[in-house]
């Protein structure tokens, strides 16, 4: 038994001698791995006191281990490990604090940038509002322009329509059919453009149509006015004819020259003084001349064809002057009246008969037709 114990002791001693010291405990090995990691240098720089403290504990652990003091080895290893972890935690705390500062810086930069960007947004929004207002203004201006153009075009079209209506009322279809057709075509084009809403084109076309309408009026109005005046003159002549119908020894008629009131037997044969018994009739003639004061008066003396023509001419001239003098003596303005002798050159009846000669011996008081009032076709006829 003693021999067996001795052999065991010898083997143990031999093994102990062969291996040197006992293997390091797991905690110590773990610590050595921990302190060999890359973070060790950071720990040493940031927390040199803790680093030294951990290293001291580690050396104490190694020393205890070499002394075979396992409890003491474990104790110092724990102290070293805990101190090391403390240093690492504090170092990581500093990392976190650095990270915090970095985050705060990042946030501040972002906030500054955000403030600038929001300012840009405010400016851009203000710009957008301004542009919107400008668009609204431009739209309103365009609308106003369009409405103005529409109103102008409509006004022109109304004017054209009125002119064309007036022209048609003046019988432009008869007086100026070509210009009227042209103006109506231009007006139709302008009207179509207007109805399509193309007011610029309508305005442009309306200008053409307006010129065409003016041309129609210009071409129509003189003829119409002349006809109208002729109608008015003829109407006056008709009333004159009616008014003169009751006068004795007179014969009224409407001619192209005007209203001719032939007064017979004013003079005795070869005489140039008005017969007293004819004064009443001549007074009524003078009254008519005064009443129809718008007409010039031409007093024409006529004879029958008995006697010499030159004598008849002189006689007729004198008789015409006698009537003129009588009329002016009755208040007729002298500048309205002219007198002329025609002799026997313009008979109105057969000179071979007594009645015919009596009719030819006359004084024609002519209510002269104005030159502009050419006789209307119907009236003239």
């Amino acid at each position: 038994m003693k021999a067996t114990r001795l052999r065991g002791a010898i083997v143990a001693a031999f093994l102990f001698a062969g291996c040197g010291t006992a293997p390091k405990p797991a905690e110590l090995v773990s610590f050595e791995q921990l302190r060999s990691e890359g973070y060790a240098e950071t720990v040493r720089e940031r927390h040199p006191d803790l680093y030294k403290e951990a290293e001291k504990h580690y050396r104490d652990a190694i020393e205890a281990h070499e002394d075979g003091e396992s409890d003491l080895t474990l104790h110092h290893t724990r102290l070293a490990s805990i101190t090391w972890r403390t240093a690492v935690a504090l170092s990581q705390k500093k990392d976190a604090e650095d990270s915090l500062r970095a985050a705060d810086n990042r946030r501040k930069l972002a906030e500054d940038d955000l403030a600038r960007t929001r300012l840009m947004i405010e400016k851009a929004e203000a710009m957008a509002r301004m542009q919107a207002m400008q668009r609204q203004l431009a739209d309103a201006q365009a609308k106003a322009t369009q409405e103005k153009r529409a109103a102008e075009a409509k006004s022109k079209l109304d004017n054209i329509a009125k002119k064309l209506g007036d022209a048609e009322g003046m019988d432009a279809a008869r007086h100026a059919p070509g210009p009227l057709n042209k103006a109506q075509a231009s007006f139709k084009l302008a009207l179509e453009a207007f109805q399509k809403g193309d007011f610029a084109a309508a305005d442009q076309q309306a200008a053409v149509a307006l010129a065409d309408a003016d041309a129609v009026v210009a071409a129509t109005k003189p003829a119409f006015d002349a006809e109208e005046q002729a109608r008015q003159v003829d109407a006056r002549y008709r009333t004159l004819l009616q008014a003169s119908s009751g006068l004795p020894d007179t014969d009224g008629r409407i001619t192209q020259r005007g209203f001719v009131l032939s007064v017979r037997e004013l003079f005795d044969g070869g005489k140039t003084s008005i017969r007293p018994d004819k004064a009443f009739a001549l007074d009524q003639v003078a009254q008519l001349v005064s009443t129809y004061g718008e007409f010039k008066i031409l007093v024409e003396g006529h004879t029958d064809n008995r006697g010499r023509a030159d004598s008849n001419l002189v006689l007729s001239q004198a008789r015409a002057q006698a009537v003129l003098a009588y009329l002016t003596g009755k208040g007729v303005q002298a500048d309205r009246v002219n007198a002329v002798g025609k002799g026997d050159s313009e008979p109105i009846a057969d000179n071979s008969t007594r009645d015919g000669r009596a009719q030819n011996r006359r004084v024609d008081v002519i209510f002269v037709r104005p030159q502009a009032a050419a006789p209307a076709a119907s009236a003239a006829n």
Partner: protein
Amino acid sequence: MKAIVASLLLLAGAAQAAQPAAQEKLRQYTVLAQKLEAADEGKRFVEDVGTLRAWLSEAQAFLAQEEDEAASRALSRIAVQSRLIEALLERAKAEDAARQAHERADVVEKDLADARAKAADLERRNADHGGAR
């Protein structure tokens, strides 16, 4: 709490002090351990706090058995373990603060990205409308 840990660490050097002094240190460490445990609201360091609790019990037992040397070593470990837990809590607090700061920064950066996109969109629209006018 940090001041308490520092003063206790200084006292730990005199671990071979007499029983009454060791008992007083143990009591102070026990109070400190309660504070550290309460400070660990997220219960992230339960294991380290458990180790601290175990060593406090161990130290109590050594003192009761009047094994002063063992009690002194236990108090030394308690001292550095308390300091470790405090460092871990401070690190956690700093990391939480950093994380929150990054989250705040992320929010602001997202707001910034949104604002930049809006600004770019507005500028593009303005350019389009300006060009169209």
